[in-house]
């Protein structure tokens, strides 16, 4: 059985075809592979035309991206078969904007909220300072927008993943 996937990492797309148990092609170039999961470890080993690679590979927590941790570097890959790819292309960039929700990345104490509801923020502006693990951590806006809701204040304790504020 041959399976064909379109795998996207960053801005690059790779057409990966699984030809048989020991061959794949990537963008039509054929490689000999030997791919195994290392027993007892969440580690995969790949010999690709003899070159040895190992990686941890696991599904992401909240999205469909595969996380590939290889040689100290994390790659996030979207793997789609041809049907899924057509669907997602149709959906298009419509979902690109929308609300950004700042959740607490870990339990902690809100030290300061330097923005107010309605404030205009730029990418990189500090939205909130959270104290955790004996450190003050600045949480920044990933993009330009307007602060819509602020749901915590300085002095509040927050649980992990608690919604703190939103930017639209």
């Amino acid at each position: 059985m041959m399976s064909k996937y379109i795998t996207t990492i960053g801005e690059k797309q790779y057409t990966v075809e699984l030809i048989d148990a020991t061959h794949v092609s990537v963008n039509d170039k054929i490689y000999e592979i030997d791919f195994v999961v290392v027993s007892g470890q969440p580690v995969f080993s790949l010999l690709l035309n003899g070159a040895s690679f190992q990686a941890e590979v696991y599904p992401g927590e909240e999205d469909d991206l595969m996380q590939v941790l290889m040689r100290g570097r994390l790659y996030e890959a979207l793997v789609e078969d041809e049907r899924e790819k057509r669907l997602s292309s149709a959906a298009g960039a419509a979902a690109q904007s929308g609300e950004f929700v700042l959740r607490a990345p870990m339990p902690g104490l809100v030290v300061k909220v330097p923005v107010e509801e309605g404030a205009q923020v730029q990418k990189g502006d500090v939205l909130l300072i959270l104290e955790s693990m004996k450190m003050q951590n600045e949480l920044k806006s990933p993009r330009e927008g307007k602060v819509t809701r602020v749901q915590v204040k300085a002095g509040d304790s927050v649980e992990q993943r608690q919604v703190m504020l939103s930017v639209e």
Partner: protein
Amino acid sequence: MFDKVLIANRGEIAVRIIRACRELGLQTVAVFSEADRNALHVRLADEAYLIGPSPSRESYLQMERILDVARKTKASAIHPGYGFLAERSDFAQACEDSGITFIGPRPSAISAMGDKATARATVIAAGVPVVPGTEDVGNLTNEKLLAAARKIGFPLLIKATAGGGGKGMREVRNIDEMPHLLESARSEALAAFGNGDVYLEKLVEGARHIEFQIMADMEGNTVHLGERECSLQRRHQKLLEEAPSPFIDDDEEFRQRMGEVAVKAAKAVNYLNAGTIEFLVDKDKNFYFLEMNTRLQVEHPITEEVTGIDIVTEQLRIARGRQLSVRQEDVKMQGWAIECRINAEDAHNNFLPSTGYISHHVLPTGPGVRVDTGVFGGFQITPYYDSLVSKLVVKGESRAQAILRMRRALEEYRIVGVKTNIPFHQSILEQARFIAGKFDTRFVEERFSLEEAEGGKETHPEIAAIFATLVAHEQAERSAHIISRGKRDTSNWKWVSRWERMNR
């Protein structure tokens, strides 16, 4: 003389101290908070007692409770590690009052060095150079500051008395721009801290942070074990240390001159046991006393590696009333050691602390590699304590070999479940300026960008794409047969072990 030691700490340093006790045949008593029931220090100690809930102020900072455990278990000595109660003179005093040996300096030395003004005055009196400035008088008028500035010389720094984090700080190059900068510093300080007081400090340009390890016994014999280079910092947190310092390198005369001043500073407070004198060093080899850490230092292993002296063992011996096992002339630095602090921090996301369950943990091993850690596969990194996961230490014959070895060790190190700063260390170790030894305390924050550094590195997105596709494919194949697609929210570890069992 004690033969049972209570370790008033947790994590890697508690494990480190338990190991040293075990190697000396001393019994050990661990204390732990509710979060730490499974921790390694609890399991390695001979005895272990719960002292309170997870937050450290309710457990590891509870002096009375810890002293109670010591009394109950007849532990007649306490090692405080670093952090927590290590630099609390009241705790050292309370130990003494209870007839318990505090494995560290006398309470008076902790007090003297703990207060910045007192420490400065004490070491100045002993003839130790300090950074010129007005810091101990924080409420001077602009006129007095301008007068003082001429004495200190330029460039200098205006700093907020109430300050921290760079707020209200200004670099001043000459007297003409100073009145203007004074005003803006004061107003920023006022806005940030509600206090517009400022003081002046000479700006040590291209400063390095170099510290000397001190050991002193009860008879007053005091030696230094050479220096550690600690200039690689981010937000005043040390990240990577080495011994010797590439700046001092083979200038043995300079090393001994600094070491003698360090010993002098320690003697000025009648120091006992292990401590560290921190200096700022400028490019012309002028050096200034910064502070003394009156405890075991996180980065003590690199000194152990190059001197062959086990500092924790030596601490225990000294506390038992023994003489120092070395004289100054016996101390030799051989080879080169580097320590990388592996923190649970997301190097790619502003070093945000990362908590979670370590599902997988493979340590680097082999020649010249040492790991000091308190974590293991199955350990939970909680938000209650600092983010240090482990200290990766390598030793090589030369600095070049140590750097190459550290790169190799970082590549082998595998932690799954929390994010770490390993990518940061990997990038630093490839920077030309680091390799050349040409860096100062501002290097990480001002001259280094992880994104830029990684931008230049070889990547393998195509290989990653193949990995991702093969795993996704097998997963899809399996889920079609076995598991409904919606069940993918199981943890990685379980998922992999399920796969593995099916494929075995």
